[in-house]
Structure formats: C-alpha cells, structure tokens
C-alpha cells in the first residue's frame, strides 16, 4: 500500500548503498595499499567491526528513539562513564566480595540502575520544567561528568574480574558478547518502534506534539520513559564495554553524544522528530566503523577519519536537501 517513489527509495537505501560502496572501495584500494596481508572483507574482520561498533551503536539506538520523539540527549557520554564507574567500583565494595561471582550481575544491575536514574533525571526535568531537551541535557552533560569526577577524583576506577572478562569475551559462532548485545538491542528497539503502541506514539509525539496533547496522549510521562530508555542503554553500553576492559577514566565517553548523533543522522533520522528508523541507525553505525577500519586498512592516518566522517555528514545533509528540492517551482525562502 505504501507509495514508494524513487526519492524515498534513494533515501531509505542510501546508507546501505554507502556501506556497499565502502566495502568495495576498501577491498579494491586495500589490495593496492594495504599494509596487512589479510583481505578487508575478511569474515573475522567483519565480526571485529561489529564488536567495535557496539559501544556507540547501543547508545545510537537510544538516541534514535529520543530523536524520533523530538528530543535530543547530549549527556549520554557522561552517563556512560558514570555507569561504568559505578559498575567497576561497586565490585570493590566489601559487601560485594562476599557474593563471589554473583557480584557480577549485581554490579551490572547497579550500572543499569545508574543509567536509568540519570535518564530519569533528564526526563523529569524536561517534562516538569518544559525546558528544551537540548539545554537540559547540555547542562547534565556537564553535571553528570562532574559526578564522575566527584566519585573518584581524577583517578581511574578499575576492577579486574576474570569471570567477568570471560563473559564479556564469550562468543556464539565467533560473535562476541558486545556484538550480541548490540544486535539484541537493535532488534528489540526496532520491534518497539514499529510494532508497539509506545513506539508509534513516539513517532506521533515527535511529528506533532500539540496534536498528541490534544488527542489526550500523556506526552510528559512518555518522554520520561524514553529518557530512561536512553540512560539505560548508555549504561548497557558501558556494561558491554567495561566488563572486558576493567578500567575507566573519568574522561571516558567524551564526545560519544556527537558520534551517536552522527550515526543517527547518517541513518536518515530527522532532527525535527517524527521520522527515522532503528535499522537506518544501525547502518549509520556500521558505516562509520567501516570507514574507521577501512582508512586504517589502506594505511591512511587515523586522523583523517575525523575529516572524512565530518565531510560525509555534511555531504549527506546536502544530498538529502537536493533530493527534497521541488525544482524551479520552489519558493525561494
């Protein structure tokens, strides 16, 4: 039933076309310039890519929900760091020592709880004060980072637990835990956004908040739930990442918000809310990680990655605008 014209098709499939382009380019270019012997499209390499995409990817999924809902969250990097600090530090608590390996799930839960609480704080402020989410989360990005420092000063927090590392590096058919978590999060979020009442309401609110209010939707609590979701996902991202590494610096996770937003926008979600897709964001995350790896593969400086991603982001925006032009009949404003 859905009318699909060429423009929609180009827009919807653009990110996947771009990924194919990257794969082809780096495979071909790699055979000329690669420093390593292995092919770029090596299976192990792709699995590694999925794993490396996980931290930003999990957060980007949450960001997609928030942005479809018409908000934005700049505090995810700080939430990521604080959840990691809580997780690793809690394992050093005397009371946890008595739990043996049961301390691990408890620490995870504490981390997720931290993320949920931080998300709740953002959400309740956005709901009750009516201050724009951009400003609220800009403030809490600073505030949450302050809490990270207040927790343990400028020192790193660490705890190494081999059982936890084993779990974090466990794999099913070569797919390691972080990648599995990412895939699970993508699938669940996709189902929520396309199949559930909550997901459809998120689109409706992002698309026309006043209409949603008039229809009697409780917009405030709805947005609150989404902020709790993104906070929890930021914490889940920290759980997936730090369970293996076991050490967190107070500056970790800085600029994650910007990377996540970049991935979401590359995936076709609009800043204005009301449209976008989880699958598109997944594509955006993969595209960015592919670019990182690919540039490394052909021996380009890692520095150029930033330059290329920034340029691509702007180019995507430009193309999107060109595709939406109505040609000569357009009003010049």
């Amino acid at each position, binding site marked *: *039933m*859905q*009318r699909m014209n060429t423009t929609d098709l180009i827009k919807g499939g653009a990110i996947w076309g771009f990924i194919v382009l990257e794969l082809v380019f780096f495979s071909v270019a790699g055979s000329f310039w690669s420093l390593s012997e292995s092919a770029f499209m090596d299976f192990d390499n792709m699995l590694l890519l999925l794993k490396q995409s996980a931290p930003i990817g999990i957060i980007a999924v949450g960001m997609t929900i928030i942005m479809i809902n018409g908000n934005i969250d700049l505090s995810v990097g700080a939430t990521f760091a604080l959840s990691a600090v809580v997780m690793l530090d809690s394992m050093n608590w005397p009371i946890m020592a008595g739990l043996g390996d049961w301390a691990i799930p408890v620490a995870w839960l504490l981390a997720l709880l931290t993320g949920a609480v931080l998300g709740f704080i953002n959400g309740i402020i956005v709901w009750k004060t009516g201050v724009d989410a951009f400003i609220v989360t800009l403030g809490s990005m600073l505030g949450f980072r302050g809490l990270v420092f207040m927790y343990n000063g400028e020192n790193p927090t660490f705890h190494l637990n081999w059982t936890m590392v084993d779990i974090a590096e466990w794999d099913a058919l070569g797919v390691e835990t972080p990648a599995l978590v990412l895939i699970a999060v993508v699938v669940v979020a996709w189902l929520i956004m396309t*199949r*559930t*009442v*909550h997901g*459809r*309401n998120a*689109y*409706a609110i992002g*698309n*026309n908040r*006043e*209409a*949603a*209010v*008039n*229809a*009697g*939707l409780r917009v405030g609590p709805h947005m609150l739930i989404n902020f709790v979701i993104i906070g929890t996902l930021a914490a889940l991202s920290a759980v997936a990442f730090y369970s293996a590494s076991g050490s967190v610096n107070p500056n970790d996770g800085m600029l994650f918000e910007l990377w996540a937003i970049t991935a979401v926008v590359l995936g076709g979600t609009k800043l204005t809310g*009301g*449209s976008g897709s989880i699958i598109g964001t997944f594509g955006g995350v993969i595209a960015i990680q592919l670019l990182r790896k690919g540039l490394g593969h052909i021996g380009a400086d890692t520095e150029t990655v930033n330059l290329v991603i920034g340029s691509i982001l702007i180019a995507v925006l430009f193309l999107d605008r060109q595709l939406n032009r109505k*040609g*000569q*009949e*357009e*009003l*010049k*404003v």
Partner: protein
Amino acid sequence: MNTDRKPALRLENIVKTFPGVRALDDVSFEVFPGEVHALMGENGAGKSTLMKVLGGIHQPDEGRIFVEEAEAVMTTPLHAKARGVMFIHQELSLAEELSVAENVYLGELPRKSLGRVDWATLYANTDEILKRLKVGFTARTRVGDLSIANQQMVEIARALTVDAKVVIFDEPTASLTDAEKVVLFEVIAGLQAEGVGIVYISHRMEEIFKITDRISVLRDGEYRGTLVTSETNEDEITQMMIGRSLDLSRRTARGEVGKTALRVEGLSCGSLFQDISFDVRQGEVVGFYGLVGAGRTEIAETLFGLRTPSAGKIFLKDEELRIHSPIEAIRHGISLVPESRKEQGLVLGMNCRDNITLPQVSDLVAGPFVSDGAEVAIFDQYRDRLEIKTPSWRSAVGNLSGGNQQKIVIGKWLAMRPEVLIVDEPTRGIDVGSKSEIHNLLRDLAARGFAVIVISSEMPEVLHVSDRIVAMYQGRVMRIFDAEEVTEDSLIQAISGIENGKVA
C-alpha cells in the same frame, strides 16, 4: 431540530478569568441533538477560551457543563473525549508522517499483548469510518500525502471514533475550496441526522446562514444572547458582535485612474500558473479572485522575486524588469503584504517600530548606526495614519490584535512608498470591525494614486474593494471583469472553470 429532547450540551454560567482579564463572563447556552449551533464573536471575544474549557484544557472558575444533562467535569482532553465532546481544530492537528489510521486513533491505538499495536483492528475500524465519510483514500495512506481538505476529513474521522454527543468545528472552512466545502456540509448534515449536537465557529456569514439553526454571540468574553438563524440577519448579528452596525455595501465610485503601473505578459511558472497577462493602473484596485490553489498567491510571490518564472515578462511603468529576489522587487517599488501575517509578515518577538522599519533599516542610518529618531518618526507617521492601537512602539507585535498586526504589515510596506502594493488575503483571521477599516484603507490608498492588487478568497471582499477583478481557475486567468459589469454568478462561474456556459 427537536427542542423537546434534552440538550446534548448545556453550559451554565461559565466564568473564566486569567490574571487581569475576564476571558469568559457568565456564558450560558445549550445545543440540542441534531442542531447546528453557531458560535460567533470577534477575535478575542472568548471563543477559543470557551473551546479550551470544553476541551478540558482549561477549567472554568465558576459555572457548570452538562453533557446530556449529566454534569461533566473535564480536566484533560481525554475527559472531554470520554464524554463524547469532540473537536475539529482550525489548525490541523495531525501527525503527517503517520498513516491515516494512526492519526484517527491517535492516543488510542488498539493494543494486543506486550503493548503491541493491533493493526488488523486498527485498519478495519478506520476503513469503516472512512467509508461513512465517502472519502477516496484508505486507512494506510500517509497523512502528509493528502490534500488539506482530505486531512480535514481525517480530523472528522477522529470525531467519529467515539460515540460523539457534541462535535465542535473551529473555522473548518478556512482553507477549503468551494467544492470541498460542499462535502464538509454534507458530512455535517449526516452528523446532524444521527442526532449529534454541533457547535460551528466561523466568521463567514454566508455559511452561518446556510447551515446553522441558531447562533450564540460572544463579545469581550460576555454572552450576548442566542438568535434563531431563520429569524435574524447579518446586521443584527454584526451589531451584537461589535456593538454597532457596519457598512458592507459596495464601494463608492471609482477614483481617478492614472497611467499603467504594472503590466504582466504571458507570465508562467511551471505547473503553478501559465500565461498570465494583466495590468494595474495607478489609482486602481485590481482584485484576484479564485479558489485556493488557483495560483494567485504564487503570482504575487513571483512578482515579488520569491519564485523564478519559467516564461513571460513583467513591465513596471513600461520598463521590463527581471526580479530575482525580494530585495530587487522592493528596489523597483513592488511591495507584498503576504498571506500569512505571523509566518511571513512579522517578526513577532520584535517591537512595533522595528517591524515597520525592517525593510529600510539599512537606509535609516546616522553614520554607521541606526538612527533612533528617523525610526520613531516613521513609526509615528504610520501609527497615526493607519490608527494602529498599541501602547508604545516598544510593544512586541506578538501582543497586538490581528487587525493591528495587519496594519503594522501594511504600514511597513507603505513606508517604502511602493509603486505597486500587493495585498494577499488582507483580512484573513481579522475581526469584523478591523475588516472594514482595512477595506477603507485599501480604497483610500487607490484614491491617493497607489496601484493596488488585492488577493482574496472572500467574494464580498473582492466585490467591495476592487475596480477590476481577475478571475482565476487552475493557474489560468479565466476572465477580467470590470467592477460595474461583474455579477456574483458570472464570477463564480469563471472561478469554477466555466466559460460562456461551458466547462473549460
């Protein structure tokens, strides 16, 4: 109408005050099942506050609301919905990215387990309602792909999802074509037949007399009374609304007409309009009349440099012009009072003076700085001339009434001393009192030698102010009438595409 039955909706002594304002003062009236009850009043008379009270957005300070004689206390929009009080909003309240079905059941999507949407039920129910409305789209269509009129049908479909007792239409015809209005009135008649009570808010007299049974009037928040439509006339209503009578008769005789100020030959812009030719002389008002979408506004935008014509020539005082931007248009002496006051006409956060001087601020300088004195002088001049009511030039224009805001926009362009002044929908959303003031102003401008183009969707307005009338249909000029020879019938035929009795 059956007055033996108990009223569908009854308001009893509703009072609502805001800090410093008594927005509603002792408002009481009732709406019977199957009745179309008009609610009239100037802008600011309290209609929208009353709607918000009925919609559960505001709570009344005093008074009670009864739905089918049961008292209804409504503190959220959901309460109103649950009581069967439904709204068709003036500004469409739809999520364009979503499907028709999701919009119709917005806030009440049917659920399955785990919070999943029950799509089958959703589509089936929606299609059933759409069938009742006899529309040509389905539940799965994306709302953004529908025309404005069809989007309004989606709003109406929403009202039919519940067992509506009362449906409130807030200026539903504001952006509809005549053909679309006919469909709307059929739908309203259908609701009426089903015994729904209808509250119909509109400024348009001809509609009021066509479809309503009774009329309640508000003025300055006060309830002024209820009239039976068949026993009253426009004058009586107008008097109740503004406290005096109004002269809406045909204008006085034409003034002195001078040389041709603007001449357009074969102007086209893609599919928007084609082969447009007309001229405007100094001292005359040329009205553009046609349905919404006939291409009138687009012509104005092209003359003002906001669109690029695909063919044709524009002459100003016999000199051919190429206009690429509003800056160039303004330099040549063409000014445009745009269709949408708030979106295109004014910077609402700026004060009155700065809005009036905006197009010429670069010229009002003393050295590198904006000259305060020159600006205030211009503001004072146009405040006096147009009788703009504002406490001071420092007031933000957002705080003024619609009529005064429109005068600010007109003042802004008069201050540029244009050769040609184009006014698009000069009185849209403006109350009756200010309307006639603006009409007089337009006539007065022509008398002073300005060449004026007025675009309007209201026939009385076009007939009232114009010396000549350009009738448009689907992007083409059908006929140019002289004010003396035009009749309402011939005008309606022309804008409906009927030429010499034949459909074009």
